[in-house]
């Protein structure tokens, strides 16, 4: 890893125009890109799960538990990019002990704790409780022990108790939807409320964040469902098609909001318009125009509208299911790349121009070091490992629960 002064010296060589001398160091790097990407996946996956429960969308039921576990796996990792980018991670608990109530960032701990403890863990627990009790009775060894511990001693699976679980899940889901909006809308607010930065300062940012979160969450669950479904040979095409149509509509709203933001800025043409145009046409051309807009949004939109049954039972162009699956996978992966680019363009893009509005700087991504590429890549891989473990402990498959049902009848 290059020493900081050498990094900054080479950045200084590449500055165009004038930037304030303190702006040579770019302060929020790749880790801060990872953070909204991860929370977006959490919020999006949860909202997808809620759709099934609140609006009773039967087709996507196979993804309900998978979506919840995905949300949990990513949520557990969410604080780490923030923690690692702090100058003094050992002091981070001060956010809980002496929060500055005027600070948007100070609320992170509370929003996070609320979402993790009250919403996600409770919902998963209530939803799995009956199965946990049944599994712990049928199994032997370590699994039995784990499932028994996870019941937290609540082993009553009488009809009344199970009915209570069902009601609790419903209640938490209803509470969870605004919470998911809060979690990610809040992340958008952290950026949108910075009046010093014309690229961030927009009331639309939290809403754009929210819809892009829903898009990324649905796409992620779609990828996971596709891969696990193919491996286990239990893929339901109806479910995939329904997911694809949700994905399409979320993408339409997301894209419309982004276009609105773009046109609004262009039409208002405030003093920052010149430097922002330069920013888009030079520094962000690849990540914004190519990756975010064309590959990450337009291409998936076009392919979904053409080949997926988004308006009713039939697609505009009918293709065999095998090909459609492949297309969904491609679209979902492109969307992930697009949404990651969106986060990059907000976080890094917002720091590539000077607040003097007179110059552009560059971001030099390091491979090694705390803020380097490998740490971020590691943080993005960990949730999949966690998810694998969760799936082993809490199988989200329909058969796993169904298999236990007959036994349940004879339970206490």
């Amino acid at each position: 890893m290059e020493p900081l002064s050498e990094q900054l010296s080479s950045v200084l060589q590449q500055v165009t125009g004038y930037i304030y001398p303190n702006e040579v160091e770019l302060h929020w790097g790749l880790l801060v890109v990872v953070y909204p990407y991860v929370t977006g996946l959490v919020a999006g996956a949860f909202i997808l799960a809620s759709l099934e429960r609140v609006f009773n969308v039967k087709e996507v039921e196979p993804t309900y538990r998978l979506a919840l576990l995905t949300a949990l796996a990513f949520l557990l990792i969410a604080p780490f990019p923030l923690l690692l980018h702090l100058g003094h991670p050992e002091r981070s608990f001060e956010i809980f002990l002496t929060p500055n109530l005027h600070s948007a960032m100070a609320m992170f701990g509370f929003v996070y704790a609320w979402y993790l403890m009250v919403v996600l863990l409770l919902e998963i627990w209530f939803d799995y409780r009956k199965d946990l009790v049944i599994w712990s009775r049928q199994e032997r060894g370590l699994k039995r022990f784990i499932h028994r511990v996870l019941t937290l001693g609540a082993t009553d699976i009488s009809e009344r108790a199970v009915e209570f679980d069902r009601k609790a899940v419903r209640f938490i889901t209803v509470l969870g939807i605004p919470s998911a909006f809060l979690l990610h809308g809040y992340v958008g607010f952290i950026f949108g409320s910075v009046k010093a930065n014309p690229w961030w300062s927009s009331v639309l940012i939290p809403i754009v964040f929210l819809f892009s979160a829903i898009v990324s969450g649905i796409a992620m669950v779609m990828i996971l469902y596709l891969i696990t479904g193919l491996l286990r040979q239990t893929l339901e095409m109806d479910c995939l098609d329904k997911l694809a149509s949700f994905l399409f509509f979320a993408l339409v709203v997301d894209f419309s909001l982004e276009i609105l933001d773009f046109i609004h800025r262009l039409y208002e043409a405030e003093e920052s318009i010149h430097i922002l145009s330069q920013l888009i046409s030079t520094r962000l051309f690849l990540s914004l125009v190519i990756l975010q807009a064309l590959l990450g949004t337009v291409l998936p939109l076009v392919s979904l509208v053409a080949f997926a049954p988004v308006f009713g039972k039939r697609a505009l162009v009918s293709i065999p299911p095998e090909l459609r699956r492949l297309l969904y996978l491609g679209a979902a992966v492109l969307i992930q790349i697009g949404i990651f680019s969106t986060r990059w363009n907000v976080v890094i893009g917002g720091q590539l121009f000077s607040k003097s509005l007179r110059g552009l700087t560059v971001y030099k991504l390091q491979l090694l070091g705390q803020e380097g590429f490998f740490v971020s890549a590691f943080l993005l891989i960990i949730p999949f490992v966690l998810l694998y473990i969760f799936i082993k402990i809490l199988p989200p498959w329909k058969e796993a629960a169904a298999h236990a049902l007959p036994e349940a009848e004879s339970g206490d």
Partner: protein
Amino acid sequence: MNTLVQIQTKPPNDPEQIATERREFLRKCLMASPFLVGIVRVAAQQTAGNGDGVYHPEDHYYGMGVDVSKCIGCGRCADACKTENDVPRDPYYFRTWIERYVITTEGEVSVSSPNGGIEGFPATVSEKGILRTFFVPKLCNHCASPPCVQVCPVGATFLSRDGVVLVDKDYCIGCRYCIQACPYGARFLHPVTHTAEKCTFCYHRVRNGKVPACVEVCPTGARIFGDVRSMASPLTRFRRFNEIQVLKAHLNTEPKVYYANLDGEVS
């Protein structure tokens, strides 16, 4: 009194009489000395606080004036600031810096601040086509409604009662949100302490009745430090006799660094 009258009326030609008068004069001076010392001490205490020898922040509300037309771009202020406050010498960390604006007859504006202006500025290539050029010293504006203070998640950066925006480096978690929130680029992350850093108006000096280092060393008096509210302060006089502007007024941060003769191009 008689002696004095004698001095005026009678020419002092008797040496013994002169010696007596001197002795008398010195005796009176000695008698008056406790009063003189008292006056000096009271004056000193008044500059330091409200009479009890202790610094009372609530008695002050600091700001700075900058007369753009007086700045010659020598960079001594930025240099003195680094020395006084142990700011890293690398050209990426500044509590204060100088910008040079060059405006051509075509209306093109170019701004530069090589190493914050500490070594001065290279000559402009040609004076042909230059409409005007000037220097602008920059620093933390010690805003009355500072966005940096608003966003700090733990309250490590705060507005002191005497109107100075400060950072508690033993408390700062290094999240850098304040750096993002400052519209003036006045903050940086100290590469050694990993905490947010900024101009303190040389708080350690100001508390002891001195002016900030940059004000002290400015050879042309382009920087004026003082109390915003006190009528007797040089800053109030500066604000009274100049047309004043602040930077990025539209952001409603209410800066307390007041610029006189500021060009509209300065951002």
